[in-house]
């Protein structure tokens, strides 16, 4: 009978069940509950079949079940293609395949299916825990593949062999990872077929929307500066610009009509940096003000907001340059300026009255009006807090003159409203402010709680000028961080707090590891590969020379491993090592094994000297003699020998 047609043994069934479970369980969150339950039932049935050694279900029943499972997937998703339906379908097939384990052929196809499902995990998440989980599953799956060809060794030996084999494969894996010609684009950048909830700035801002973000310590993006890190108070990461106001919330208006290059001339010194942006589902790319260059595949809206051609659904890395001293928008179009003056017809009478007074006093002197507005904000003694009271209809008036407590969105909204009412073009800019340098890897980490809103005021000859009204009332928000600015006792994500130093240290380390993973494993792209090869002294290698290098290195690793294995084999026979352990034990009792003495001769002599252990000694010596001198001995005896020697106490 051909090897591929050998029946599946009981032990092999258990192995296959374990593998199927290991491949299936991490996927359960991704598939509908009813399918997960159905698959679980199949696994339980498989366990019962193996346990009781019942007959396998007939083929016609399996055909019916496959049809039923396929239609269930179809009705759930209205499709059989795509990421989630595909994976759900494979889970169904895996569960049903277990019910027809007849020959080694079935076992091997099950194992291959499990390998594929391990891969499928990465289509959903690519974090380090996922990778570790996948490693565990791969170990079990490979052990099952071994067991499919030889099921005699015990599970422990099987796993040990697997680990050895995988360890031997590791250098090749690393070589292939580093040198295999890369394709452009992220490895796992599959289109999301469900709108996944990701936190981040939205394209509208109403009172409380940014305060909500301040409760999240999720990473928004990480930045690596090429040179010196600018001062904390200069770290304004420009995001969506919101010129439109409907009386309550501010909105983004401009997403089309983009510039291919910044429509202004960068001025003054520049800062170079690289951003690794976490997916947020929107188009905008955060950039330090004012962006001097644009990342590839992006453009700039007319209000200087860099946007990507496609929504950011995968982690994105881009380099940029910022020129803080740039004058932007000196020749701003009349339409944009008009839009930056629009206000609802009614509401907020108090601030309108004050603004009208400014206008009377200063006429069109925007600088003077700006100073008056700043003065108003100072005089009102506004309090920066994460828990502002709820506001009624006239949000600006109530904030400025009644509650006087607010978060950055209140400050910026009120400020822009006041200026517009006084006839000065102004707009709200959302984004992030600040960030924290992780001392472990030197990356600046910007988290969701660094979300911020500030304003831009248009002044003739100077263009758009950044004014941060929050800084007027709470300068510590800008110079330090949220935690320093809000009153004590307000709930904050613990990473934002300044106490709990050791916890923060721990988180910093974990974040550095995650970042390293993102940068070097998930973000290992053709550019990184090229940089690496260039640092090894290989200039601009094409795929041919790359293949040659790969082949040569793989050959070298293979030779090295072979030499090592041969060397090991000559050096230590595990049976001999066990025997030496045994003789050391006896030597402590004064019974010394002579190096030239055969095992049975020694056993006779030793049991003569220690008659109470005669039986154990003879058993061990017999096992050892078998293992060492009988080539047909089953290697399982080795663990038996080791167990006996461990249990042997002279």
């Amino acid at each position, binding site marked *: 009978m051909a090897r591929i047609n050998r029946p599946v043994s009981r032990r092999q069934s258990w192995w296959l069940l374990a593998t199927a479970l290991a491949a299936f369980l991490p996927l359960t969150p991704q598939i509908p509950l009813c399918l997960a339950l159905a698959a679980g039932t199949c696994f339980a049935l498989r366990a019962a079949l193996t346990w009781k050694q019942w007959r396998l279900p007939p083929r016609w029943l399996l055909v019916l079940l496959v049809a039923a499972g396929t239609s269930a997937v179809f009705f759930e998703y209205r499709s059989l293609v795509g990421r989630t339906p595909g994976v759900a379908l494979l889970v169904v097939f895996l569960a049903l395949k277990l019910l027809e384990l007849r020959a080694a052929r079935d076992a091997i196809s099950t194992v291959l299916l499990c390998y594929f499902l391990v891969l499928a995990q990465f289509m959903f998440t690519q974090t380090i825990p996922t990778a570790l989980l996948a490693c565990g599953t791969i170990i079990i799956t490979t052990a099952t593949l071994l067991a499919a060809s030889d099921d005699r060794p015990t599970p422990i030996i099987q796993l040990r062999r697997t680990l050895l084999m995988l360890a031997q494969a590791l250098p090749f894996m690393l070589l292939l990872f580093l040198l295999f010609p890369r394709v452009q684009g992220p490895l796992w950048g599959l289109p999301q077929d469900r709108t996944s909830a990701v936190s981040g700035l939205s394209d509208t801002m109403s009172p409380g929307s940014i305060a909500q973000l301040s409760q999240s310590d999720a990473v928004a993006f990480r930045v690596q500066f090429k040179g010196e890190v600018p001062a904390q108070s200069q770290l304004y990461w420009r995001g969506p610009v919101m010129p439109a106001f409907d009386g309550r919330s501010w909105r983004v208006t401009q997403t089309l009509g983009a510039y291919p290059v910044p429509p202004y001339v960068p001025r003054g010194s520049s800062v170079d940096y690289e951003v690794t942006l976490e997916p947020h589902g929107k188009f905008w790319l955060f950039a330090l003000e004012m962006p001097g260059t644009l990342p590839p595949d992006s453009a700039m809206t007319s209000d200087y907001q860099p946007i990507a051609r496609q929504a950011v659904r995968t982690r994105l890395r881009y380099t940029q340059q910022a020129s803080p001293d740039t004058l932007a928008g000196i020749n701003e179009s009349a339409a944009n300026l008009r839009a930056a003056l629009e206000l609802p017809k009614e509401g907020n009478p108090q601030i309108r009255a004050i603004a009208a007074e400014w206008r009377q006093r200063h006429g069109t002197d925007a600088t003077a009006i700006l100073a008056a507005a700043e003065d108003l904000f100072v005089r009102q003694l506004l309090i920066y807090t994460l828990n502002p009271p709820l506001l009624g209809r006239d949000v600006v008036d109530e904030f400025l003159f009644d509650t006087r407590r607010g978060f950055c969105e209140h400050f910026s909204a009120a400020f822009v409203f006041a200026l517009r009412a006084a006839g000065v073009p102004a707009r709200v800019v959302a984004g992030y402010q600040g960030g924290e340098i992780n001392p472990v890897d030197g990356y600046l980490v910007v988290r969701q709680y660094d979300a911020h809103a500030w304003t831009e005021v248009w002044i003739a000859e100077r263009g758009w000028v950044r004014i941060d009204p929050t800084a007027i009332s709470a300068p510590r928000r800008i110079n330090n961080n949220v935690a320093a600015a809000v009153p004590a006792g307000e709930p904050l994500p613990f990473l934002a707090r300044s106490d709990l130093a050791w916890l923060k240290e721990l988180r910093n380390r974990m974040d550095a590891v995650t970042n390293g993973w993102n940068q070097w494993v998930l973000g290992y792209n053709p550019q990184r590969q090229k940089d690496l090869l260039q640092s090894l002294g290989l200039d601009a290698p094409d795929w041919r020379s790359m293949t040659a290098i790969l082949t040569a290195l793989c050959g070298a690793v293979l030779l090295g491993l072979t030499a090592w294995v041969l060397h090991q084999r000559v050096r230590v026979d595990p049976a001999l090592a066990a025997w030496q352990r045994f003789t050391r034990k006896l030597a402590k009792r004064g019974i010394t094994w002579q190096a030239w003495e055969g*095992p049975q001769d020694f056993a006779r002599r030793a049991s003569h000297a220690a008659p109470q252990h005669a039986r154990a000694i003879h058993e061990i010596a017999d096992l050892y*003699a078998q293992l060492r001198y*009988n080539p047909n001995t089953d290697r399982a005896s080795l663990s038996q020998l080791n167990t006996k020697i461990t249990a042997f106490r002279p």
Partner: protein
Amino acid sequence: MQALQLEAILADINRIILGKERPIRLALSCLLARGHLLIEDLPGVGKTTLAHVLARVLGLEFQRIQFTSDMLPADIIGVSIFDRDSASFHFHPGPVFTQVVLADEINRATPKAQSALLEAMEERQVTAEGKTRPLPEPFFVIATQNPTHQIGTFPLPESQLDRFLLRIELGYPDPAAERALLAGTDRRQMVAELAPRIDPIQLIALQRSAATIHAAPALIDYIQALTAYTRAAPRWHAGLSPRAGLSLLAVARAWALLAGRDHVLPEDVQAVLPGVISHRLRPVDDAARTDADTMAAQLIEAVPLP
């Protein structure tokens, strides 16, 4: 089944030759390993009886050649005589054409006669008057030799000694065995009454089994270490030859078969070592000449098991 056969054979031999279990086991091992045996001992200790019993119990033909100083090769391998009736030469096979040959006092004969027998042993065929004649299968030579210091002997050169797989000594029986021998019935009578335990076909099967006993890499390493040690040690004139190493392995295999095992242990090698090396190694210092067991023990204790 083979184990039972072998036990029965050993029991039969031990019943007749008393108190000599180890030399008998060695002799049988030598036969199973398809080698030839050299017994060096004084007259009257049972060499002939041993050869006789072996032949009898294994169901083999037996011939005895008494070597003398005036012996010619034709006395061993046979001669062609002119037959008047058929008007042609007719070959009369010598005593070597048998399955078990007892070559008694081989060192009494001249080297010329000795070499006639030794060539037959090695080639397992005889060439006389230009015609090659095969010897019967199995073919087993037991040669006896008087201790070399006796007068009127032609000592066998090393190269020829190497052709004997094993050299054993019988020695005097211990007192108990000797009393039993004196009290018991006539040994000749017992030999004559002995029934064969196996036939030559079965013997050949046993020899094949012995050749297939497993020798693990660790054991091969051990034998190699032993031979390498004898070549490097200054104690002996020349080390063991590769043929000696092969002989050692072959006898150890047969010894393991006799012990009922399907693989060779270092103990097997050590047990047969005296018989394999004592006629192959010559001490540099003649005064340090010892018996085979002491010499083997020196070698064993000098070489650790790999």
